[in-house]
């Protein structure tokens, strides 16, 4: 029997006090859990670039709070032990009906009336439940805080998406992302194509600009990669097919386009951005924006194009959004937010409406293929005159910027690609280019 040295209180009072202490303990445990969550979040924030010192005071604060909670918990635990509520040894005493009240089972269940068998049964059942709950909670936390550890990846379940391109013999069978890229590499020798895992792209972006002749192998050497047998990062052999998340297209001396694929390893692009081949830095990614107006404007036109590939509803809502915003200082979602500049964004109303109407019919599976073809058409960005005004440089009326023809209407382009039997280069020669203000409704 428990020694009465802890207090001279009557058992009911002991029970009440013990229950209260247990309640306090439960609250402290909840506080500790919250603190752990906050620490996780702070660490996550600290992992982002440019934010690494911001969460420091938060972390320190949480640390102190956590320590206090754990200290309090210990003292309550000690209290409960002293009052023999949390005493495991009691359970092991045989022939005891286990009538000590209240009792905390080894698995944490609080039992007011302890009946041996019932206790055993309850402990067993609740242990299973608790394990299941704990596992579920851990999985959720893991997904939330460590997304890159998602090993049983969505992409594996979906598999590589097959694409079908009507009318093209080489592409009528199902193709994976690598197949498409390899096909392109052979098809278009002037454009360099690289594929990366997302994290590898982040490293490469930060090391740009490499000199024009320096491919990924040079920059990787300068970063201390050794081993001549290792395939160069970025080359199509170096990356696992189901991990391809970023495709980089480089037209030397003209532009660099970064395409993001979602889900990883599939063939559906979800973001694209254009940059100068001399630009580098961590902002060079599929959702970033170039420091130069000409590339920013192309990115925005493509943004509309991609959205229309994805969903009908989104198309119309964004079309309406832009119709109602009519220019000045509107930040098109995330694309202009990074760069604070005074020149207003163009109204792409005419162009986006065309895109919206047009891409209703295009299959999603072919999106990547045509996206890459379209990027290729920008090879002549700085040399091809506008099909309307016959000049390369023109002042854009709305932004007062001097821009080359940044529009390559993809409708005609798509039509030319699929209907004609001519080799691709000749097809592209027919692709027209327009300045923002030069395109008419008829196009």
């Amino acid at each position: 029997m428990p020694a009465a040295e802890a207090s001279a209180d009557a058992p009911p009072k002991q029970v009440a006090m013990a229950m209260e202490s247990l309640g306090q303990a439960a609250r402290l445990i909840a506080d500790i859990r919250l603190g752990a969550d906050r620490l996780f979040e702070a660490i996550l924030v600290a992992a982002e670039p440019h934010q690494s010192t911001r969460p420091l005071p938060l972390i320190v604060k949480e640390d102190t709070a956590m320590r206090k909670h754990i200290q309090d918990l210990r003292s309550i635990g000690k209290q409960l032990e002293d009052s023999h509520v949390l005493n495991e040894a009691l359970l092991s005493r045989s022939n005891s009906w286990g009538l000590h009240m209240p009792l905390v089972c080894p698995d944490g269940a609080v039992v007011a009336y302890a009946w041996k068998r019932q206790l055993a049964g309850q402990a067993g059942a609740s242990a299973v439940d608790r394990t299941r709950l704990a596992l579920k909670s851990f999985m959720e936390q893991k997904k939330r805080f460590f997304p890159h550890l998602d090993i049983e990846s969505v992409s594996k379940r979906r598999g590589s998406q097959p694409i079908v391109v009507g009318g093209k013999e080489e592409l009528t069978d199902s193709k994976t992302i690598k197949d498409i890229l390899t096909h392109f590499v052979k098809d278009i020798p002037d454009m360099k194509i690289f594929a990366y895992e997302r994290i590898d792209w982040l490293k490469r972006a930060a090391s740009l600009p490499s000199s024009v002749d320096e491919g990924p192998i040079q920059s990787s050497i300068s970063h201390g990669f050794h081993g001549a047998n290792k395939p160069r990062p970025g080359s199509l052999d170096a990356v696992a097919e189901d991990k391809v998340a970023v495709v980089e297209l480089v037209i030397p001396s003209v532009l660099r386009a970064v395409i993001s694929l979602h889900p990883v390893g599939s063939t559906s692009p979800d973001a694209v951005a254009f940059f100068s081949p001399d630009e580098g830095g961590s902002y060079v990614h599929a959702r970033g924006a170039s420091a130069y107006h000409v590339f920013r404007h192309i990115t925005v036109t493509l943004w509309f194009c991609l959205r229309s590939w994805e969903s009908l509803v989104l198309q119309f809502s964004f079309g309406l959004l832009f119709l109602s915003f009519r220019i000045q200082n509107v930040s098109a979602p995330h694309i202009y937010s990074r760069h604070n500049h005074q020149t207003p964004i163009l109204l792409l109303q005419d162009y986006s409406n065309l895109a919206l109407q047009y891409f209703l019919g295009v299959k999603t599976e072919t999106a990547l293929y045509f996206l890459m073809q379209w990027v290729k058409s920008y090879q002549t960005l700085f040399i091809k005159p506008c099909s309307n005004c016959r000049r390369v440089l023109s002042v854009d009326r709305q932004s007062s910027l001097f821009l080359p023809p940044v529009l390559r209407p993809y409708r005609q382009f798509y039509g030319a690609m699929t209907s004609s039997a001519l080799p691709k280069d000749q097809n592209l020669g027919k692709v027209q280019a327009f300045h923002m203000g030069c395109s008419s409704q008829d196009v």
Partner: protein
Amino acid sequence: MPAKWVLHWHPITGASVNTQILDEISQGIESINGVKDGRWKAVLTFYKPIVRDQSMAAEFPRDFLGISLPDEPYKYYFVVRGQRIIVEADLSIQAIMDKLQSYKLRVALNFEGIQYGLGDFRVRVGKVVPSHLTHSETMRGIVMEVEYLPISSIDQSKQIMEEFVDIVQEILSNKPLPGHFVHSEPNFAEYGLSDQYTSQHAAIQYSTVMAQLIARHSQ
């Protein structure tokens, strides 16, 4: 480095270059939304060899130029146009030359003025004055630099640069001004340079402009 053109002002016969013309040019740039961005300065120095034996002097190149550029504060460039030589050196080379007493300064000229931003373009307009007379009103010439920031390929940017310069020329000719800008592109390949623009290209462009200013003066 972004591709760049360097042009010099060619006045009509009999006309001079003065501050008024420079101001009109600046206004013209501002009228197409040029935004003032700061000042710039380049210094060109003609060197003359220090030789004990005067007959040796003939063996040295006559047009040995040293150039300091605003975009490269830690570099110094040497150009020998006759032999198509361009050398990029550290700024400390000037001190070395002083110590060696191998060459001395013959004439130094400042190219200085205001810089404008126009979207993806950057334009610099400036006067050419002797270094020791920077505050005088007499200027030897006017130069204009046009840079297209997004690309560094000279070939790719050629069309765009031409059209931009045409636009500027048109604005200036409407003013009207007694003269126009001239662009004569040096043959970079002869100096061993590639299509990618670098400060060495700029140094050569400046030496070419200098040669043309001298030619004009001697007419």
